[in-house]
């Protein structure tokens, strides 16, 4: 068989090379994407975390009483890490976080027990640079489009049809 006789040889070789590269990149990205997706789902659905946020808001509104800071409908997440900065005026060494923990352990034991386990993937997701995986996925998306147009050129041969071509089992975009 002569190579010169095969139609669109260049495109075919490009597609084969791309497919190898694609699978390699996807398997590299897969663990990061899974950690981030799992952590996002946890943040969206964890009941104990929602309950904790409601408690922190209630305590904050109770402390701020009728002042202009009181009656808040929510707060920014970074306020959570300021709980440990609010010191007790009556118990030296104790902070608002200590009070919250004590209150939650005594009155909302379910929250205390499940909080850390319900957010188990947040630790690994925090190590992932989201902008990097987002850039990688966008670049792969561009290469998928380019490859699809190459496939369009050769689709008549050997029963290859770009519309039904599956790039691995998982597609994230």
């Amino acid at each position: 068989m002569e190579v010169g006789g095969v139609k669109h040889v260049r495109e075919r070789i490009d597609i084969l090379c791309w497919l190898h590269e694609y699978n390699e990149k996807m398997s590299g990205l897969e663990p990061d994407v899974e950690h981030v997706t799992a952590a996002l789902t946890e943040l969206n659905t964890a009941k104990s975390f929602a309950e904790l946020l409601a408690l922190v808001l209630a305590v904050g509104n109770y402390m701020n009483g009728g002042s202009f800071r009181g009656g808040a409908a929510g707060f920014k997440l970074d306020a959570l890490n300021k709980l440990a900065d609010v010191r007790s005026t009556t118990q030296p060494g104790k902070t608002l976080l200590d009070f919250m923990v004590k209150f939650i352990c005594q009155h909302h034991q379910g929250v205390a027990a499940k909080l850390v386990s319900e957010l188990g993937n947040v630790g690994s997701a925090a190590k992932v640079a989201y902008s990097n995986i987002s850039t990688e996925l966008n670049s792969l998306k561009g290469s998928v489009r380019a490859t699809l147009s190459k496939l369009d050129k050769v689709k008549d041969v050997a029963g290859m049809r770009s519309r039904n071509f599956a790039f691995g089992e998982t597609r994230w975009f």
Partner: protein
Amino acid sequence: MEKLRLEVLLRFGEDPKSGEIGEVFQCVLDFLSSFSAAQQSFEAGGAAAAAAGGGKGEAEDQSSRAVDNKLSAMKKGTFRRRAGSSVGNH
């Protein structure tokens, strides 16, 4: 994943365009680690505190009840929203 990211950013009051999901993760992670440390410290000192409790108990119960009342009011939706607050608009 991108849809979930936007959903979480909106849920936590961050700007979906400029908000960094990594910062949200880090913030929650930092809090979880301080929470766990405080929890361990509370559990370790629990027995000693219970023994020394006495007179402080009533005042603490009162403040716990006040917080629970506030929480129930919020859950019932009878809690007033601060003027000008954009939280909860999304």
